[in-house]
């Protein structure tokens, strides 16, 4: 399979080599070739983008992901429509990431909501261990005041490395909502999410240091440092 992909990569690379700036034929494997193609396409290289679209349409999963990753940053209606189709193809082919992305896309402003379909897609994503899908289902459980289910889903998402879920699950743990109260675990989760530059978690730590919460000994200096860290994380997130 890998060899076949590599062959496909090589063929596609050769097809677009003249129009791109990367030596695709030197790519060590299909993944690298796709990464380079995506990079070139991201720089508005029409040849590379067309190659990605063709690859995607032929059912190549990694090309589909690369093409979706390219389209997701574009706001024009044509790109959004193309993205929806690409993701729908992926979801139908069993791609849990695509299902989750599609659910997020369909939940966005300006798109008529088919809530049942969104929930189905999120369930597919969650079953496929996509952390964001578990988090989004967890948020729905929170809104429905089903705290135990919310805790379970957010814990899943947190375990999968989703920083916002770590933060939200930590909030439940420190309050003992839907899960036994566990401040030590909440602190560890805030720190983990903070390490991932998730600003609200760092802000929670700044507050905890200031007020001596979560088993920490109050330390104004440490709080100030965390506050600065949060400011930096926010600057990176919103700039």
């Amino acid at each position, binding site marked *: 399979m890998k060899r076949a992909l590599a062959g496909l990569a090589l063929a596609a690379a050769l097809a677009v080599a003249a129009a791109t700036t990367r030596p695709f034929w030197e790519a060590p494997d299909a*993944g690298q070739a796709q*990464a380079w193609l995506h*990079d070139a396409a991201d720089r508005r290289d029409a040849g590379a983008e067309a190659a990605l679209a063709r690859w995607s349409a032929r059912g190549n999963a990694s090309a589909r992901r690369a093409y979706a990753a390219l389209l997701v940053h574009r706001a024009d209606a044509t790109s959004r429509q193309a993205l929806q189709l690409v993701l729908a193809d992926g979801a139908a082919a069993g791609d849990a990431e695509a299902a989750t992305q599609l659910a997020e896309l369909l939940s966005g*402003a300006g798109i008529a909501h088919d809530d049942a379909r969104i929930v189905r897609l999120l369930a597919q994503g969650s079953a496929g261990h996509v952390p964001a899908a578990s988090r989004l289902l967890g*948020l729905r459980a*929170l*809104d429905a*005041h089903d705290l135990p289910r919310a805790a379970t889903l957010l814990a899943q998402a947190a375990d999968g*490395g989703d920083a*916002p879920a770590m*933060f*939200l699950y930590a*909030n*439940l743990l*420190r*309050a003992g*909502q839907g899960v036994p109260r566990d401040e030590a675990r909440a602190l*560890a989760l805030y*720190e*983990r999410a903070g*390490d*991932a530059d998730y*600003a*609200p978690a760092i*802000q*929670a730590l*700044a*507050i905890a240091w*200031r*007020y001596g919460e979560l088993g920490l000994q*109050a330390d*104004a*200096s*440490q709080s*100030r*440092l965390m*506050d*600065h*860290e*949060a*400011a*930096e994380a*926010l*600057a*990176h997130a*919103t*700039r």
Partner: protein
Amino acid sequence: MTTTSLATARHRALVATLAAAATLAACGGDKTSNAPAAGTTVALTMMETTDLHQNILGYDYYKLAADNSVGIERTSTLIKQVRAANKNTMLFDAGDIIQGTVLGDYQALVNKVPCTDKLAIFKAMDSIGYDAGTIGNHEFNYGLGYLGQVTGRQFNVKNLAAPSAQPKCTGPAYPQVLANVVSTTDSKPIFDPYVIVTKNFSATTPDGKTVVVPVKVGVIGFTPPLIMAWDKGNLDGNVTTTGLKETAQQYIPEMKAKGADIIVAVSHGGPDSAAYSATMENGNLYVAQVPGIDVLMMGHMHQVFPNANSSVAAFGIAGVDKTKGTVSGVPAVMANFWGKNLGVVNLTLKYGANGWAVDTSATTTATLSTQNADKTYVAADATIAPLVQAEHQGTIAYVKTPIGTTDYRLSTYFADVGDTTAIQVVNQAQAAYVKAYVAANLPQYQSLPVLSVSAPFKSGFAGGTDYTDVNSTDLAIYNAADLYLYANTIQAVLVTGADIKAWLETAAGRFNKIDPTSTSAQWLVSSFPGYNFDVLDGDGSVKYEIDVTQPLGSRIRNLTVNGTAIDAAAQFIVATNNYRASGGGGFPGLNGSKTIYASPDANRDVLIAYIKKAATLARTVNGNDRSWHFTRVTTAGPIQFTSAPGNAALAATDGILGVTQVQADDGSGKGLAVYQIDLSVQ
């Protein structure tokens, strides 16, 4: 590499040779040699600072108070200790130098450092003596013109005059290298991509003699390619970035060909296990894989490396040894930030048939902290403060500069009992900001009311001095920091009337349930944090009561908007901060999903802008709305709370009736008094 930097390197090498030779001669007459015998070794200690962010002195400009936990004046003490203990040392900086404190903003934006003067942080760094350093992402925050000025460069980029028409300003004395930021004008790196520094080290020959040997140390620098997104406005069209790995692959062989004996990569970033891309933020796992790099100096992540106990995910990935301190097998350090730590790499160089090589079996890495085991800090290097006194005092004067005036005292001493003098103006600033944004950018929401929430961040937790108190007719920048404590950013959430009621019910957890029939004294305020006691305001349009005789969840009464009971199903926009909007505090319905606008602007900056625009804050306009009050109830016993002593008259001035001080000292040792409030007159 330019001729100038080569000449500078040669000059430095000559000076170093003379100095080292003189030192050794004084020690007993060992000879200087340019041709080491095979097997000759050099014990070399390389040090790193990173992410200094203009923290020179241990001082908090917002608090106008010392803060010994930060500042290069204390790192300098560690550097001197290392130099005293080791014959051969080098010092590098991994970037993010010029921005990050009020002092940085002061020199860049307020009282711009003149072309002929050196930036304060570079004065300190030059005094300490660096061998080389790189450029961090924050160096680009003030634009290429300012960066060129303070680093003594004349960039050949589109948005600046031709280099020949630019003045040659004063930069740091040490060479700054950056290989992966390229001008779109001439396709060349805007800084020297690397430098080769010839150092004359004390060495030991196989027969035990001490000699001085020249070693050529190549230093190459990198910064995160994401600067193109983070500083798009400053950089777009003027420069581009190249991938770290490809750039290293291009220059390392060139450096070797030019004679570099060993190579140090000073890279403002960390490691990341994600597949390599030319735009990845932390590409050091891949940089270190490029053959020829002997040492990696990292930064940007504001972390300590090595650190066996680190929970940082990036330090737990394959290829990174957080105990030994290696990245892709290359010895590496990251020295935290703000001068809190010093990175140290101890190397043994051995001369062989192919020249100098690092004996990897003898390499160790560590970081030293300015904080001692007993939580005290090492003494500051007394030579640093005098160098930057003018800039330090100028910054203090700046934060004291009035941005407006006020005809009333803004305080949180009685925020727990309904005083909103220090909160209302924050809410007004937030609401005005969000209203303007919605009007300009979110037409679908233009018909919705915009409300705002904010909390008394300082509400006596640490004692009688832990309250906001702006007790002056002049309002200065540091007062804004007193009014808004945290570095939050503004967010607008779309919520229903029911959501707002639930929000306020949670905030009302600030109070204990009061039994009106009890004749015993009852404490009004619970352990619910003051920073979560959100106060809703609508510039006079919102009114509500908190009935403390009711259980949690049933305390908000008579919640009205424009005189009408709030419609549970109606939609509202509420201006708040990113922490709350993301779920901070665990408020029901707030979990990041209701945000309709996440602003890049800090609540504090929005407040400063609001005060500047208003010029004068008037009690009648900004301080006496009192959107909430307690539901009147007659209690059989006294209802008590604590605040700073001697302020009962202030409560009356602010319209809070029935407040009397009953005990000047609550016995906690925190400078708090006990007050009593008559809930029947609220």
